[in-house]
C-alpha cells in the first residue's frame, strides 16, 4: 500500500529529533514520501490533495505529538481524492509515551507501526514469558502487610523483607485513625499476626535487599539478614533479658520520647513476637565480647546468642513490590519553630506516641518534666506520667511542606492528623485550649470535610494563617501568627507546640531505585508508570509500588493501592502478560512483531 508520512510536530518536545525519525521512516517498506510540514499555518487541503495525487498515496500517516489535531484536513483531502479515509493513521508520540531515555527508538517504532497499519499497543506488548510465582515485598508497613496477605491468601509464596525488628511500620505507632477515630492497632495487629502465622509468607525481619538481577518474571534477589541474636522460635517474650540489660537508648518505636534497653521488643504486639538485640548499642557486641553479656545468662530459654552471624539469603521471585514508606523531615533545620531547643515542641510522630495508650505516659497528654540525669550530670526534659497536662496547645500545619526551601509538595495527611490531634487533646485534657494554624485545609477524602467541621464545632480555634515563629518568653512559649479571617495578628501563650512535619522518602529509596533500575521523581519518591492509568506499576516490568513510597497518601489510599498491586501480581501469574512493560521491547522487536500482525 503506497504510504505517505507527514510530520507535524511543535518544537516543545526537545527529546525527539524529527529529522532523524523522518530519515528512518523513509526506508520503511511502501513509503513513497516523507514530509516535515509546518504546524503554523496548517497545511491547506489543496496542497495535500496535490501531494496525494502526485505520489498516488493510498495511506497517510500523520506523525507528531498530537496528530489527531491535524487529522480533519487530511480526511478532507483524502475524501476529495476519493481515497479511503480509514487509511489515515495517527502516530502519536505523546500518547504512546515516546519520552525519556529511549524516546527516539520508541518514536521510530510508533511511526513504523503506523505505516504498517498496526495499532502500536498491539505490537508493543511483549509476549508472555514464564513468571515465577513467588513475590518479594520490600517494606513491612501497612502497604506491605496488605499486599502480602492478599497474595498469600491466593495461595502464592511471599517473601516479606523488613528492615527493623518488627513489621507494622508507622501505622503501629498511631493511636487513632482519621476521620473515623478507629483504634489503629485494632485494625493493624490482627493483620500483623496473620502475616506472622501465614504459611505462604516468609517473614524476613532485620533484612535488607542487597542486589537484584534478572529480568521481569524471574528476578534473583540477594538479601542480607542481620543477626537478631535471639532465637525467634524459642523466645517467649518473658522480658527477663531486658530487665537486666544495663544499656538505655532512645526508642525508635516511641519516636525517641522514651528509652529502651539494648535487648528489647519494639512493642508488645510486635511480629515476630520475640526480643532482639540492637548491635549498635549492646555493650557485649560493641566490646567484641569482653564486657557484659548478662542477658545470655539470665535467659531461661537460653535463646540469646550474641555471636550469631549474619545470613545471606538468595531467592528467586517473579514480581517485586516496593512498600518502603516514608520518614519525617528533619525539623530541627527549620529553626524558627525551636524544635530541639524548647522542650515542649514536638513532631507529629512524637505526639502520636505520647497520646497512644501504650506509650510512655500511658496515653496521658502531659508536658515534659525536668529530671536530673545522673550519668551525664545534666538536667533533661522527659515525659513522665506525673507530668502536668498542658493548658493550651498549638498545632502548626505545613511545617516543611509546600515550602520551596524544604518540600515543595503537600504531604497530604498533615491537615487531617492535626485535626485528629486537636480532637484527642480536647478529649483527654479538660479545659484545654487548642489552636490550629493552617494555610489551606486539605480535607479531601470521604468524611474528611465533615471531620474538619466537627473539630471546629468542638471548640478548637482554627486559625487561617500559618505561624512562622515559636519563641520563649519568661518560661512560657509564645506562638505568633496572623489570623487572616479575623484580620488580626495573634500571640498565643501555649504549653505545647505540635509541628505537622512534612514527609520525605526513606533514605534507602535512592539506593533501591538504582539497584532495581526504576525512576524517582524530583522529590525522591518512586515514579509510577502513569499516574492515572497505571498508578501501581513502575517503568520496569514486574516491579510495583505501593503506599507512601510512591507519594504521600493516607491509610485508606495506601491499603487500596496495596490491594491493587496484589491484583496486578496475581494477574501476571495467569496472563503472563504485562510482565515486561512496553518500554522493555526494542525497536527491532516491535518491528518484527508488527510484521507478523500485519501478515495475519
Amino acid at each position, binding site marked *: 500500500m503506497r504510504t505517505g508520512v507527514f510530520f507535524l510536530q511543535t518544537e516543545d518536545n526537545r527529546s525527539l529529533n524529527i529529522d532523524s525519525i523522518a530519515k528512518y521512516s523513509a526506508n520503511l517498506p511502501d513509503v513513497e514520501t516523507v514530509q516535515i510540514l509546518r504546524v503554523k499555518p496548517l497545511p491547506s487541503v489543496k496542497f495535500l490533495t496535490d501531494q496525494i495525487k502526485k505520489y498516488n498515496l493510498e495511506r497517510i500517516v500523520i506523525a507528531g505529538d498530537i496528530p489527531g489535531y491535524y487529522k480533519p484536513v487530511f480526511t478532507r483531502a483524502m475524501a476529495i481524492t476519493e481515497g479511503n479515509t480509514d487509511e489515515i493513521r495517527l502516530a502519536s508520540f505523546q500518547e504512546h509515551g515516546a519520552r525519556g531515555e529511549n524516546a527516539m527508538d520508541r518514536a521510530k517504532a510508533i511511526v513504523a507501526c503506523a505505516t504498517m497499519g498496526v495499532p502500536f499497543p498491539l505490537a508493543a506488548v511483549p509476549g508472555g514469558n514464564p513468571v515465577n510465582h513467588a513475590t518479594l515485598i520490600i517494606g513491612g508497613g501497612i502497604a506491605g502487610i496488605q499486599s502480602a496477605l492478599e497474595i498469600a491468601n491466593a495461595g502464592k509464596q511471599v517473601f516479606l523483607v523488613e528492615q527493623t525488628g518488627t513489621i507494622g511500620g508507622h501505622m503501629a505507632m498511631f493511636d487513632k485513625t482519621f476521620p473515623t477515630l478507629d483504634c489503629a492497632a485494632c485494625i493493624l495487629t490482627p493483620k500483623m499476626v496473620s502475616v506472622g502465622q501465614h504459611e505462604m509468607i516468609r517473614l524476613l525481619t532485620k533484612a535488607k535487599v542487597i542486589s537484584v538481577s534478572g529480568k521481569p518474571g524471574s528476578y534473583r534477589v540477594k538479601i542480607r539478614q542481620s543477626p537478631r541474636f535471639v532465637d525467634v522460635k524459642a523466645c517467649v517474650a518473658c522480658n527477663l533479658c531486658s530487665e537486666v540489660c544495663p544499656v538505655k537508648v532512645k526508642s525508635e518505636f516511641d519516636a525517641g520520647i522514651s528509652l529502651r534497653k539494648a535487648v528489647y521488643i519494639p512493642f508488645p504486639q510486635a511480629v515476630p513476637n520475640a526480643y532482639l538485640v540492637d548491635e549498635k548499642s549492646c555493650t557485649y557486641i560493641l566490646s567484641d565480647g569482653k564486657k557484659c553479656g548478662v542477658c545470655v545468662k539470665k535467659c531461661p530459654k537460653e535463646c540469646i546468642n550474641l555471636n550469631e552471624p549474619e545470613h545471606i539469603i538468595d531467592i528467586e521471585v517473579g514480581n517485586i513490590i516496593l512498600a518502603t514508606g516514608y520518614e519525617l523531615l528533619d525539623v530541627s533545620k527549620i529553626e*524558627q519553630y525551636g524544635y530541639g531547643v524548647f522542650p515542649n515542641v514536638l513532631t507529629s510522630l512524637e505526639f502520636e506516641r505520647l497520646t497512644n495508650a501504650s506509650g510512655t505516659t500511658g496515653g496521658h497528654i502531659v508536658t515534659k518534666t525536668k529530671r536530673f540525669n545522673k550519668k551525664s550530670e545534666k538536667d533533661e526534659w522527659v515525659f513522665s506520667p506525673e507530668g502536668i497536662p498542658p493548658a493550651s496547645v498549638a498545632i502548626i500545619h505545613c511545617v516543611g511542606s*509546600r515550602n*520551596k526551601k524544604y518540600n515543595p509538595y503537600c504531604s497530604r495527611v498533615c491537615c487531617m492528623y492535626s485535626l485528629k490531634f486537636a480532637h484527642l487533646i480536647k478529649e483527654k485534657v479538660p479545659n484545654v485550649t487548642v489552636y490550629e494554624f493552617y*494555610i489551606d485545609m486539605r480535607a479531601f477524602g470521604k468524611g474528611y470535610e465533615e471531620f474538619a467541621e466537627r473539630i471546629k464545632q468542638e471548640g478548637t480555634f482554627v486559625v487561617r494563617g500559618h*505561624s512562622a515563629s515559636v519563641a520563649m518568653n519568661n518560661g512560657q512559649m509564645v506562638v505568633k*501568627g*496572623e489570623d487572616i479571617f479575623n484580620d488580626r*495578628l495573634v500571640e498565643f501563650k501555649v504549653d505545647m507546640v505540635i509541628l505537622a512535619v512534612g514527609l520525605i522518602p526513606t533514605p534507602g529509596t535512592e539506593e533501591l531505585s538504582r539497584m532495581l533500575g526504576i525512576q524517582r521523581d524530583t522529590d525522591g519518591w518512586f515514579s509510577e508508570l502513569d499516574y492515572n492509568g497505571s498508578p501501581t506499576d513502575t517503568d520496569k516490568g514486574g516491579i510495583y509500588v505501593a503506599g507512601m513510597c510512591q507519594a504521600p497518601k493516607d491509610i485508606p489510599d495506601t491499603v487500596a493501592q496495596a490491594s491493587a498491586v496484589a491484583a496486578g501480581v496475581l494477574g501476571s501469574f495467569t496472563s503472563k502478560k504485562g510482565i515486561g512493560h512496553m518500554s522493555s521491547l526494542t525497536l527491532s522487536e516491535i518491528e518484527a512483531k508488527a510484521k507478523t500482525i500485519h501478515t495475519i
Partner: protein
Amino acid sequence: MSTRVNPTFIDDLDRFGAEDVQLCYQCGDCSTVCPHADEVYKFPRKSMRFLQMGLDRKLETTLEPWLCYYCGQCSEQCPREADPGETMMSLRRWLISRYDFTGLAGKFFKSRATEVLAIIIVALITGSFMLFYGLSRGSFHIYDGEGAFLPSGFIHKFDLTVGGILALFLIMNAIHMWYLVMIKGSPFPVSPWLYIKQLYQLPWHFFTQKRYADCEKKRGHALYMPWLLHLGLMLGYVTMLILVMVFIERLQAGPEIRWEVHIFGYLASIGLIAGTIYFIRGRFRKHYIQYKKSHGTDWVFVVLLFIIVLTGIAQHIFHRTGLLELANITYIIHLMSVVPWLLRMPFSKWSHLIYRPLAMYFAAIRRDAITQRETILSVNPVLIK
C-alpha cells in the same frame, strides 16, 4: 460602596520590580516575622493580597509600604519565595509614581532608557549653560574671587532656582500624598488636634530613623550597621544640601573657609562616601536579601550620587592645591550631575526622604484616630435598628 479592580495591576507592578506576587498563597508567615507589623498595620501579606486582587485604588491610600524598611526577613521566611520584601519595595516605587502628579516618576521607573536619557539631556543643558556663562563672564584660570569662572554669587542664585523647583514639586507631591492617604483613604474624618499632637513624629523619624534600627535590632547586626550607614548617608546628604543651598558663598569665598563650614563639609562628605560605597558594594555582593534584586533606578541612584561626591571632593582638592583649571572642569562635571540629581529627586527613590517621615506622621495620626473612634464606639454603640 463599590470597589474598582484593576486586573492588570499585578502585571503593571512587574515593571516596578515585584515579579513573584502571584506565587503568594497567603500563609501569613511574612506578617508574623515582620518587626513592624502590628494590630493596625498588618503587612506584608495584606498588601500582597490587595495586589493580587488588583485593588490599586485601595493600595494607593495605604501607608504600609512606607512602614517597611526592607530588612528582608519576610523574603527569607517566605515558603513560596514570593519575595514580599521586594514587593513592598516595588510598592514604594509605585507609590512614588502615584503621588507624582506629572507622571514622570512612573516613566522613569518603568524604563531605564528614558531615565538615563533625561539625565543626560539635563546634564548637557546644564554643562553647556555653565560653560557659556563662565566663558562669557570670567576666566577659565580663576576659580574664586574676582573674575572667577563660576562666581559663587551666581551659583548661589542658580542653586536657589533649582532648589525652588525641587521644593515646589516635592510639596505638591506631599500634598497629593496627604490627600490620598488622609482624605481619600480615611473612612472617617480625622480631628485636626491629632495633626498637632503627632507633629513631633516628623523630625523624630527624619533624624533618627528609629524604625530602621528596630529592623536591624531584630536581625542582630553588629551596631545595626545598615541603619547607621543609611543614617550617615542621609545626614551627610541633608548637611551638604543645606551647605550648598545656604552657605555656598562661604564655601567658595576664597582661600579662607570658615572652620564651621569646613567641619560640616568634611563630616557630610564622610557620611556620603561611606554610605554610597557601602550600598554599591552591597548591590554588587548581594549578601543581604534586600540587595538580591536591584531595580534599574537603584543603580542610577547610587552611581549618580557617587559621581557627585567624588567630583565634589576632587574639586575641593584641586582648589586647595592650586590646580584651578582642573578645579573648574570638575566643578562643571559636578554641576552636570548635581542638577539632574536634584531635579530627578521628586520623581525617584530619593523622594522617600520626604515620604517616609510623612508616612510615619500620618500613620501615627491614623492609629490615634482609630483608637479614638474605637473608644467612642465602645462607649456609644451604634444603633442600627
